[in-house]
């Protein structure tokens, strides 16, 4: 029993450490949000958000990310009860949804750049690409992390450390979900109101 409590204490410390990293990341995003908010009207004669954003497309992206946040939760709960196959299945679903999200985002970026509305068009678009791109980069790193975890689970036996890693990944993924909700609301919804 004592050993269990000790282990839990160590894991709690690691969680707090990771949590503090997430909070510093939050401040990074806050500064990018502030930059975007200040520059949102600086279109330099170029198109504004209202002319560029395709809201149904962005809603689809949002739904995909929200669902992936849910499935990672299911994976963690499956792992907590020791169901390895169930865990791997939900992690793979999460991975697929993450890849779909990233693919949609890159499609949108590609579309914008192809029409001459890249990050070099105006200060507004620079801020837009920096903010949304930084989030996309986090998603990409998360997918790498997720891929390594799935590989470990498939290749090796279930370990206690896998559970802990999974819990931290869950925090990371939910955190990115929260950041995206604010991108969806502030950049896309409010930005499309002209």
């Amino acid at each position, binding site marked *: 029993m004592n050993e269990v409590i000790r282990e839990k204490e160590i894991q709690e410390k690691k969680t*707090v450490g990771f*949590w503090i990293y997430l*909070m510093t990341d939050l*401040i990074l995003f806050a500064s990018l949000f502030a930059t975007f908010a*200040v520059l949102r009207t600086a279109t330099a004669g170029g198109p504004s958000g209202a002319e560029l954003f395709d809201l149904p497309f962005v809603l689809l992206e949002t739904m995909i990310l929200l669902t992936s946040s849910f499935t990672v939760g299911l994976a963690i709960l499956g792992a907590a009860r020791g169901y390895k196959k169930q865990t791997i299945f939900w992690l793979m679903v999460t991975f697929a949804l993450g890849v779909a999200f990233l693919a949609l985002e890159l499609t949108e970026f590609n579309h914008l750049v192809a029409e001459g509305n890249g990050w070099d068009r105006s200060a507004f678009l620079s801020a837009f690409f920096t903010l949304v791109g930084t989030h996309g980069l986090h998603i990409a790193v998360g997918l790498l992390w997720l891929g390594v975890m799935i590989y470990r689970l498939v290749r090796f036996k279930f370990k206690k450390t896998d559970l802990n890693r999974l819990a931290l990944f869950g925090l990371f993924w939910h955190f990115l*979900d929260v950041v995206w909700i604010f991108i*969806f*609301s502030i950049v896309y919804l*409010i930005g499309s109101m002209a």
Partner: protein
Amino acid sequence: MSPRIEHRNSQTRYLSYIVGFILSILTTLAAYLAVVKQVWPMETLVYIVMGIAVVQLAVQAVFFLHIGRGSHWKVVTFAFAILVVLIVVVGSIWIMNNLDYNMMHMTPEQQHIYMLQHEGI
């Protein structure tokens, strides 16, 4: 502080994720429809969308990130981070909007009239 062993059974933990998922889907759709249908005038709509975003933050924090469970340091650092975020975002918008007046190539008299009209200063 002695660590607490979790006593909640798995049923309620599943419920937490399902409720959180449904709530986040509903709030996202609400914000989306409010903007697309333009039920309210634009000034009101901005506040409504921001309000819904804060509700979504609360839903995610409670049902997914489980703030309040585990170490109390999570809550403390979260509160501090929110404070810094608000200072950075609100402060930047406030200062840069004011700075705009000094970048307009106006004579002091014109600027005085402009500020009188827009800010009542």
